[in-house]
Every structure is written in structure tokens, then in C-alpha cells.
């Protein structure tokens, strides 16, 4: 999120007569909203759906859809207000509950506040949807929905307020998080890890291979994520300007670098690069550049992407193969680790003193050291808050309604067990 613009908007959206809607900026943010929605539906849904076994594919698509719908309803009721209305440093107030006072003509920065609210809603949707990868193939739909709704309220909204609202404490400390390294990727990654631990492994993990049932679906979803990310990071400039354009360029570079790094490692280690490795490295590159995207330059992006590929590859193997944690679709090692790495590197590559690797420079009064302090603090705060609240929520929901499907349902597949449907019937 562009800092000044957020500040302006947090202060008094739609009040000052001086503020006017800019058509170019509005066009871009509306487009970006469509792009970010596209990332979740169908992008992420397909990316995740292809990775599970055929008997569970619809359960994953359904989870992404249901989260989108539930978050939207909550957003209208009070979630937008908790995230962005004036409140305290920890959470917003209820002044904008049910979109009170947000009219067609209300301006936020240089765009309609409805455009801002819509754009932000797409972020609030994708974050819990990312978590789905942690508990895929074994969680009850009812528990999933209850958990995700509560999590949006108790994790997403506060952290979002900390970082992007004008009165958020991390915002005011000057945390650099352009498009959601902390707000989106660390929260989602940590929540997925906690969910994987609380729910336990899938039947047969890790001895039975659980290979993707449809890699063409996964690659398609990955491509959609790449395209949609132009709106995610580019839209976070909240304007159609040089900042947005540079954010998109560095985003694209980091995606390519992340994919390249992962593929090369596989090539060296196994003799062959895989499509899944390539697209996973790409997602790692995208997640990692996210917090940095508005602050760094092309050189920095190249380094960030390469590091993302290398680190996330190793984190995936360590977590899944060494520790044996069944974070089904590797959300933590890709998004969590990527989010942490990116938030820290934003503090480095924002510097304007790195020659060809320079970024846009620090805010007045900030140095690399002071900035890094803030970045570390932001990472730790997000990480620990998310871990604790997620754990409590899962225990609670588990106590009330149980988290897992029965063993019989798990082996026959969630699609028929939870939704009375099958993904494919190509026989007739």
C-alpha cells in the first residue's frame, strides 16, 4: 500500500472537498480488483485443486468459493470497518460497519472509497483461501468455514489494521509492507502450519505418495496467479503511475527468478526440472516480492526472486521430509517463509545506496538499520500473534464441532463425503 495515500485516506476519506476522483487511477484499481479476485477464483482454486487427489478436488474448489462468499458478507457487516475505519492502533472501530457513510461519491485518496473497499476485500478473500492448502484433504467443511470466518475477524482484520490503517501501530512505526508480506503471506503461512499441526497428518502420510491428480490444472492456476499478481502488487500503489508500473515490473522479475532458481536446483539435484517445481518457485518469487514490490528496483527484484526460490525449496523439504509436518500443499514453506524473507529484504533493497540494486529509498529519517528493526518487529509480531490466535481458534472449533472428517470419509474422498459430488465423470 502506498504510504501517503493510505495516510490520506485513513485520515478523512471523502471529506475534504479538495479530493477528487481520478479516472485513470480508478480504472486501474477496478481492474486490479478484478485481477485479485481472479487470483483466488479460479487461480488459487485451480492451483490447489490440481495438487490434491481427484477424490478431493471439489472440496478444495468449494473451500475457496465458500471463503470468498463468507468473507464478502462479513466485509459488508463489519470486517471492512474493523480493518480500515478509525479506531486504535490495534483494531479499527465500527464506524463503517454496514458501509455506513460510504456512498458513490465518497472519495479515498484519488479513487472512490467503494473502489478501495472492493480492492481490499479481494485481499481479505485470498488470505484465508491460502490457508486451505495447510489442511487440505482432511478438514470438515463446516469446521473449515467456521474457522475461516473467525480467523478473518480475529487475525486478518487486526493485522491489516496494524499495517495499513493510518492509526495502525506498525503503519506508524513505518513498516514497509507494500502489498501484504505480513498481512497476507505471513498470516496465511503461519495459520496453515498451525492448522497442519493441530489437525495432524493425512492418512498414509508420508509413506503413500500423494501426487497431484491434475498438473495441467495446477499449472493453469499458477499462470493465473502470476497474471493476477499484477493487480495485487500494482494495484497496491492505489494509482496508475510510475510506482504501480515499477511494482509490476519487479513483481514479474521476481516471479521469473524464483521459478528459475527452483528449477535449477531440481535440475542439479535430480537431473530434471519439473513443471511443479517451476511454478512453485514462481509462487515463492511472487509471495516474497509482495511486501517489497513498491520499494525496490529491478536489480533488487532479481536477487529477491532468486533467494526466494532457493530458500523456499529448502524450507519445503525440511518441513515436509525432515520434520514430517503435513502442511498438505506447502503453504508455510512457500508463503510463510517467502513472506518473512520478503518483508526483511524490503528493508534492504529499498535502499537507494545499492547501485544497480537500489530501490526507491527510505522514508525521511529512516536508515537501513532502523528500517530493519521495524521490519523484524513487524515479522515477529505478525508471526507470533497469528500463531497463538490460530491455535486457540482451531482448538475451540475442534472442541465444538470436530475438525476432521472420519477416516472412512477421508479414504473415500471429501467430494462425495462432504458435498455429494464428484469432480469428473468422463465415461459417458
Amino acid at each position: 500500500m502506498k504510504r501517503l495515500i493510505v495516510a490520506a485516506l485513513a485520515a478523512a476519506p471523502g471529506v475534504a472537498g479538495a479530493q477528487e476522483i481520478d479516472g485513470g487511477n480508478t480504472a486501474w484499481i477496478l481492474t486490479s480488483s478484478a485481477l485479485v479476485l481472479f487470483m483466488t477464483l479460479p487461480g488459487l482454486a485451480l492451483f490447489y485443486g490440481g495438487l490434491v487427489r481427484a477424490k478431493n478436488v471439489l472440496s478444495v474448489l468449494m473451500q475457496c468459493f465458500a471463503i470468498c462468499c463468507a468473507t464478502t458478507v462479513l466485509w459488508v457487516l463489519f470486517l471492512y470497518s474493523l480493518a480500515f475505519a478509525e479506531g486504535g492502533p490495534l483494531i479499527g472501530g465500527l464506524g463503517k460497519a454496514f458501509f455506513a457513510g460510504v456512498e458513490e461519491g465518497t472519495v479515498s485518496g484519488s479513487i472512490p472509497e467503494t473502489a478501495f473497499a472492493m480492492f481490499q476485500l479481494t485481499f481479505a478473500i485470498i488470505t484465508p483461501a491460502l490457508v486451505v492448502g495447510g489442511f487440505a484433504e482432511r478438514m470438515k467443511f463446516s469446521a473449515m468455514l467456521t474457522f475461516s470466518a473467525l480467523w478473518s475477524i480475529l487475525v486478518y482484520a487486526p493485522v491489516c489494521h496494524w499495517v495499513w490503517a493510518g492509526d495502525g501501530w506498525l503503519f506508524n512505526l513505518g513498516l514497509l509492507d507494500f502489498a501484504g508480506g505480513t498481512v497476507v503471506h505471513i498470516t496465511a503461512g503461519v495459520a496453515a502450519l498451525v492448522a497442519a499441526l493441530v489437525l495432524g497428518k493425512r492418512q498414509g502420510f508420508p509413506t503413500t505418495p500423494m501426487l497431484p491428480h491434475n498438473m495441467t490444472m495446477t499449472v493453469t492456476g499458477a499462470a493465473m496467479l502470476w497474471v493476477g499478481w499484477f493487480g495485487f502488487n500494482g494495484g497496491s500503489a492505489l494509482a496508475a503511475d510510475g510506482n504501480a508500473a515499477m511494482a509490476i515490473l519487479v513483481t514479474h522479475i521476481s516471479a521469473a527468478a524464483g521459478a528459475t532458481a527452483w528449477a535449477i536446483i531440481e535440475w542439479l539435484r535430480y537431473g530434471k526440472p519439473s513443471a511443479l517445481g517451476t511454478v512453485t518457485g514462481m509462487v515463492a518469487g511472487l509471495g516474497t516480492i509482495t511486501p517489497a514490490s513498491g520499494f525496490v528496483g529491478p536489480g533488487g527484484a532479481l536477487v529477491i526472486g532468486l533467494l526466494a526460490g532457493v530458500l523456499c525449496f529448502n524450507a519445503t523439504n525440511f518441513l515436509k521430509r525432515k520434520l514430517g509436518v503435513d502442511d498438505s500443499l506447502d503453504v508455510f514453506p512457500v508463503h510463510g517463509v517467502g513472506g518473512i524473507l520478503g518483508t526483511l529484504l524490503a528493508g534492504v533493497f529499498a535502499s537507494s545506496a545499492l547501485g544497480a540494486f537500489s530501490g526507491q529509498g527510505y522514508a525521511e529519517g529512516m536508515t537501513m538499520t532502523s528500517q530493519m528493526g521495524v521490519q523484524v518487529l513487524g515479522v515477529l509480531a505478525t508471526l507470533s500473534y497469528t500463531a497463538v490466535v490460530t491455535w486457540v481458534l482451531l482448538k475451540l472449533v475442534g472442541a465444538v464441532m470436530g475438525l476432521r472428517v472420519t477416516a472412512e470419509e477421508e479414504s473415500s474422498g471429501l467430494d462425495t463425503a462432504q458435498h455429494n459430488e464428484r469432480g469428473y465423470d468422463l465415461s459417458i
Partner: protein
Amino acid sequence: MKMLIAVIKPFKLDAVREALADIGVQGMTVTEVRGFGRQKGHTELYRGAEYTVDLLPKIKLEVALAPDMVERALDAIQKSAKTGQIGDGKIFVYDLDQTVRIRTGEAGVDAV
């Protein structure tokens, strides 16, 4: 030579394969089939209408073996494929006239 056909629950495939390998069976052919029997199908929902789908996914194994292996193989499959619940499947055995390995032309017991 005998041919043994087993229709089992899909998620039991790995277990049955291992059980057969343990008694020395070296080859088999696997087909995805759908089975109809006592096991009730599941319900499918289609825009507010419920349908019963009777044909359930099963795995069919075909294993050719020497006659003296049949008892052990039956035993291995029964043990490894059994869940005790309806739908566990069936095993059928029949006589083979001839068996040939395409690569070498070997016949009979040497071919499997």
C-alpha cells in the same frame, strides 16, 4: 497356470500389492472398474435433485500364477483387502490354457 481376478476397494491397492509381493508374486495387471453389489452407492446432488449412484469405483487385479500359489495368493488378498465392511470385493479364479511372455517367448510358469 491359473488366473486370479480380484475386485477390491481402491485405497487397498497398495496393501494388496505388497501382500502379493511378499508371497513372491512378481507381476499383475490393474484396471480401474466400477462395481455394483450389495454396497449402497452414494447420493449425488445436482441443483436440488438427489441421485443415487450405484456404481462405485473399484480396482480389478489380474494375476496369473502357478497353481500351487493360488491358495497363498487367495489368503494374502483376503487378509490385505479386508476392511470387514460391505463392498470389500470378490476374488475369482479360473484356468489358463497357455501363458506366453512376449519378450522371450517363454511359456507357462516361466512366463509370469
